[in-house]
């Protein structure tokens, strides 16, 4: 990334500056520094929001730049969460089991210890056996590798099948919805090996840091999320600039033309689909330790649709648009549905935002699509006149 790269993409510098300022401010005002103007739980909300911004960036690259309306990218986000959650849950349960067994006169055999951990984790689904997929759960390194490998491989196989058959447009969107639905339904089963609808919980407790207060842990994750967002932004800005960006946008605007220029369009789609899936996985791996729990409901088809709505509202085809859309809509969503917004009593009817938020969001989406197709990010075009 050289001078010309940032010179051609001034928005990258602006974004990084704004993100740094935001990150430093939140950190200084958090409970971790003793100031405490921003509560630990709100730090977690902000940290999670940064992860959502990162997955929105991925969505923007695959949809806004490459024209593939994937409605399944939240599945990759969830897989990332599950992958890291398995280690968090295993390692923490192991610690608890070892502690409770340590007082015994006769030391436990390794088999007894494994059984006790299995019982703790899988008791809720009436099992104590470790399923095969937990084979690496005791290794943080391997589980972190899974965060990248499983979304990457799934996207590679799925994308290869879909793009090779030239599935495009709404058919591809439906196919990606089917993928995330199938995954969610599978995970809902008790014998999926991932605790069915209970999902994985207690993920906010980081093994080895039992005595570190959540105020500190939350700030560490917040900073890690900010760093991931910054790196993700730089990476995607690099990918969509230059010649790769030309080809990718060309595929969005006229796939056939790109093909007749000699580019193997399917390889490019596969490349974009896969790298964005991997970034979504990384975002999920950072999100769920802050959320504390992940269950199959998280990757229900609607989640991926929301992702597309955020990007559309923020403005697709521009990276900062995706960040703005994800941050704004997800924060507003938790404000409205979390009881933050006061209900409106009209005498004959009380507008409860928990019920009406979705209606408001739906209207906003329609309004943006009809009247501001460039989204909120499009407003920046009025501020900055692009040199022609």
């Amino acid at each position, binding site marked *: 990334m050289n001078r010309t790269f940032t010179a051609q993409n001034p928005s990258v510098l602006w974004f990084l500056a704004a993100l740094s300022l935001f990150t430093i401010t939140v950190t200084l005002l958090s409970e971790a520094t003793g100031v405490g103007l921003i509560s630990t739980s709100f730090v977690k909300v902000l940290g999670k929001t940064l992860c959502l911004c990162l997955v929105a960036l991925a969505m923007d690259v695959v949809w806004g730049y490459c024209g593939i309306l994937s409605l399944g990218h939240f599945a990759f986000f969830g897989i990332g969460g599950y992958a890291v959650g398995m280690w968090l849950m295993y390692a923490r349960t192991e610690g608890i089991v070892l502690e409770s067994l340590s007082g015994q006169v006769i030391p436990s055999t390794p088999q007894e210890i494994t059984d006790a951990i299995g019982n703790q984790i899988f008791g809720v689904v009436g099992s104590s056996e470790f399923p095969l997929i937990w084979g690496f759960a005791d290794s943080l390194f391997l589980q972190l590798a899974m965060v990248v490998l499983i979304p990457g491989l799934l996207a590679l196989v799925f994308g290869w099948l879909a793009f090779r058959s030239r599935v495009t447009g709404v058919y591809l969107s439906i196919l990606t919805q089917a993928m995330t639905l199938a995954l969610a339904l599978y995970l809902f089963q008790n014998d999926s090996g991932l605790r069915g609808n209970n999902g994985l919980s207690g993920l906010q407790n980081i093994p080895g840091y039992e005595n570190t207060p959540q105020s500190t842990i939350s700030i560490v994750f917040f900073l890690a999320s900010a760093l991931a967002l910054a790196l993700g932004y730089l990476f995607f800005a690099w990918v969509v600039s230059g010649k790769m960006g030309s080809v990718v946008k060309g595929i969005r605007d*006229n796939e056939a033309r790109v093909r007749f220029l000699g580019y193997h369009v399917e390889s490019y789609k596969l490349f974009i689909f896969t790298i964005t899936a991997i970034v979504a996985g990384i975002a999920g791996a950072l999100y769920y330790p802050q959320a504390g729990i992940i269950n199959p409901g998280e990757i229900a088809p609607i989640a991926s649709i929301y992702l597309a709505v955020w990007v559309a509202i923020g403005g697709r085809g521009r990276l900062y648009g995706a960040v703005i859309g994800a941050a704004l809509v997800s924060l507003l969503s938790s404000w409205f549905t979390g009881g933050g917004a006061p209900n409106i009593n009209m005498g004959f009817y009380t507008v409860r935002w928990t019920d009406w938020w979705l209606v408001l969001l739906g209207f906003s989406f329609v309004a943006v699509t009809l009247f501001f197709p460039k989204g909120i990010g499009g407003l920046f075009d009025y501020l900055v006149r692009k040199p022609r």
Partner: protein
Amino acid sequence: MSMLLEVSGVSVSFDGFRAINNLSINFAPAELRAIIGPNGAGKTTFMDIVTGKTKPDSGTVIWGERNISLLGMSESQIARIGIGRKFQKPTVFEEQTVRQNLAMALKNPRGPFAVLMHRKTVANGQRIEEVAEEIGLTASLTRRAGELSHGQKQWLEIGMLLAQEPRLLLVDEPAAGMTVEEREKTTDILKRAAQTRAVVVVEHDMEFVRRLDCKVTVLHEGAVLAEGKLDSVTSNPKVIEVYLGRADA
């Protein structure tokens, strides 16, 4: 002289309708050829077959000195082997600048990783300047292609073909919607291009074809009706009947 492209006995049907009917047509390595014929004669479908967009039901399409069959190849492979195509409707990337359009077309490695790691070079920059000069868009290199006039878009698309450095250029109705001066400029570009490579131009407009001053092939109902100099084919009774007997010609 050995042929650059040999199309033999090719047929293709759409829902039982024979758009191309046992068509055989050959092109030499450096020739300019005009293909004329009434609407629906199968001119565009012929290009679709050569460029891999449509698979024929029967026949062979053989390319180059090594006699490679194009039929098993994908559109992008055929493009890389040296066949460039201009569509009937001008298709350039409107969101991107003229320079970006040309840069994308420039003959360079086409794989995703090569493209990702691509760096601007002086040689590429010069190639872009040369092509822009050739198509008269030097002053518009930094403009968005969408802002160009219809004629300029057509030239840009021809420029993209030239940048690909193909051995065969298939140009579908380049003069449609152009003013007289624009047409003249277009014939000049095409004639110059044909000095070093084969250029096949599909066109309706007889005046345009006359200016090209080259061998003419008349297509009718998916087969060759006549071939030769423009004057000889236009005096051919079969050709006169086809053209005068149809309202849309």
